[in-house]
């Protein structure tokens, strides 16, 4: 964790830019990976869009080339089959999870910034939720949140009736809470990397000026974190929206109506109702939803070492 400052963050010496293009370019080296990428990524993606225009069900599935073409009917139907509800659930769940994980992640980064005995252990502990596979996290919380499980046993000790966590209206909050538990270390990692890029002189200058901790944090330190944390927020939100494993393992399929997020809706429509064309349309719509944050993210992320300065 001490290697967070990566070598490529330094600006490359200017003379390096030459010699990139001049030599013969062994583009054939792209072919094994490139052909595979086209075969298994681009063709399926194009096919997904085409499928969304077909009336494809379990009878036509094996001969999908001959399946009837029905234009945009699937898209029209998808809005009558609860897609808007799922979009709302997905988006609100993702934004809420991101909003809560940010302060937790930043706080965790702040408390592990300074060396003290046992810090290594604390840092390792902070990574546990992130390291554990999603399906393990979901299985564990599913067990703890059973009607007779340990959470309700504790709640009843303080006189609170926990009730049902895995179905009914509370399931939405269960999903949010478990997602927060599993996802905050990502923000922590990004915030920690940003904290470590703050020069020591900055700290010393604040100490000399006698600034107390809160103004120092707000005016001096947090501005350093803004860029990286915003980027992390975008990526975290995208990951929340696409998270299938957590709702699937926590609640099973079909999911309760209150946690019927977009990936669950697409999954159930295709693999339980066997309406493949309809679910392809839903999946394409969900891609359009995430396209906005994804576009912003792609503009912000550093793609290339050869592009210097602000040009992108």
């Amino acid at each position, binding site marked *: *964790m001490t*290697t*967070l400052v*990566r*070598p490529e963050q330094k600006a490359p010496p200017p003379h*390096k830019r030459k010699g990139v*293009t001049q030599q013969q*370019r062994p*583009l054939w080296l792209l072919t094994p*990976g490139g052909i*595979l990428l086209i075969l*298994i*990524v681009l063709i*399926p993606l194009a*096919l*997904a869009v085409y*499928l969304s225009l077909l009336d494809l069900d379990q009878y036509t*599935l*094996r001969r999908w*080339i001959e399946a009837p073409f029905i234009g945009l009917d699937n898209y029209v139907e998808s809005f009558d089959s609860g897609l808007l509800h799922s979009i709302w659930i997905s988006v609100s769940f993702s934004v809420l999870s991101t909003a809560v994980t940010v302060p937790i992640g930043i*706080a*965790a980064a*702040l408390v592990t*910034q*300074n060396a003290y005995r046992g810090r290594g252990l604390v840092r*390792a*502990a902070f990574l546990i*939720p992130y390291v*554990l*596979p999603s*399906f*393990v996290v979901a*299985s564990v919380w599913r*067990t*703890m949140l059973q009607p*007779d499980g*340990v959470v309700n046993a*504790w709640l009843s000790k303080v006189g609170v009736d926990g009730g049902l966590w895995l179905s009914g209206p509370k399931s939405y909050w269960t999903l949010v809470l478990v997602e927060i538990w599993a996802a905050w270390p990502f923000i922590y990692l*990004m915030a920690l990397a940003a904290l470590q890029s703050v020069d*020591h002189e900055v*700290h010393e200058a*604040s*100490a000399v000026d006698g600034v107390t901790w809160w103004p*120092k944090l707000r005016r001096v*330190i947090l501005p350093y974190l803004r860029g990286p944390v915003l*980027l*992390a927020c975008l990526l975290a939100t995208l990951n929340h929206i696409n998270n*299938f*494993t957590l709702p699937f*393992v926590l609640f099973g399929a079909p999911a309760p109506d209150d946690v019927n997020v*977009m990936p669950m809706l*697409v999954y159930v429509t*295709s693999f339980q109702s066997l309406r*493949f064309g309809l679910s*392809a349309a839903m*999946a*394409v719509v969900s*891609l359009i939803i995430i396209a906005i944050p*994804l576009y912003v993210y792609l503009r912000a992320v550093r793609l*290339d070492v050869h592009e210097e300065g602000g040009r992108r």
Partner: protein
Amino acid sequence: MSASAEATRLLPRPMLATLTVLLCAMVLIPVSYIVLASLNSDVGVASGEFWPSSWSLESYTKIWTTADLSTGIVNSLIVCSCTAVASALLGTTTAYVLVRYSFLGRLTILRGLVGLQSIPGTLMLLPVFVLFSSAGNYLGLTVIGTRWGLFVAYLTFALPFSTWVMVTYLRGLPRELEEAARTDGASTVVILWRIIFPLSLPAIVVAGIFAFLLGWNDVLFASVLTRPETHTAAVALSIFGSAQEGGALPVYSQMMAAALICALPVVLLYLAFQRYLVGGLTAGSVK
């Protein structure tokens, strides 16, 4: 030393201590629950005990017969290892060309590699499923339910991911060695094999581990593309979990033991490669 430590401290000491304790409790209570519950009896866990009233290692021996976990783990290991090796090696060659040479469409490819990681898995799974299930009709091949079918499906997200990990590493690698070798008349293949591969071995390992973990943690693809004999560990655990409710005697202690066993390879990989993995996580801003 202590004065400089004092200068970089960001929070007052009591607040720092409180926050650390709170955060650790938030993480460690559920984590210790997994361990404690797996050492408890099934009845104890089902009645909501945190601290076991009776301790035993029975769950760890019983689980292998209650659930088909061993098949799942073997399948996961085979499929994910193949995915890791294939995507790390192909990813390295592709990334090398992407980093060192400029050509038309290069930025589009780079952008695509990043973008692909945020595409909904369901959007990829649908066409893959349709192609696989129609392969029997059009090509006379059985793909659904086979390990190699799952392997190909995993490559759809592991390959762009590993390629991107390698791009972020290779662009930080100095060019001098390759240029020297080229002046000595070495061909690109020799440079790749004798210079790039040995120099970027740590990154190749990380790219492979990430690809392995993507497969190991996947439930979506495996739940659709496997049949009972080819189930992965993740699918075995989630089926086992959903079978507990509605059944007569839920065996939650065994389930927690199974959860720990499934988490073990991942935790070991992270412990062994912690430095590299955390660096890779933040450098590329990839998940």
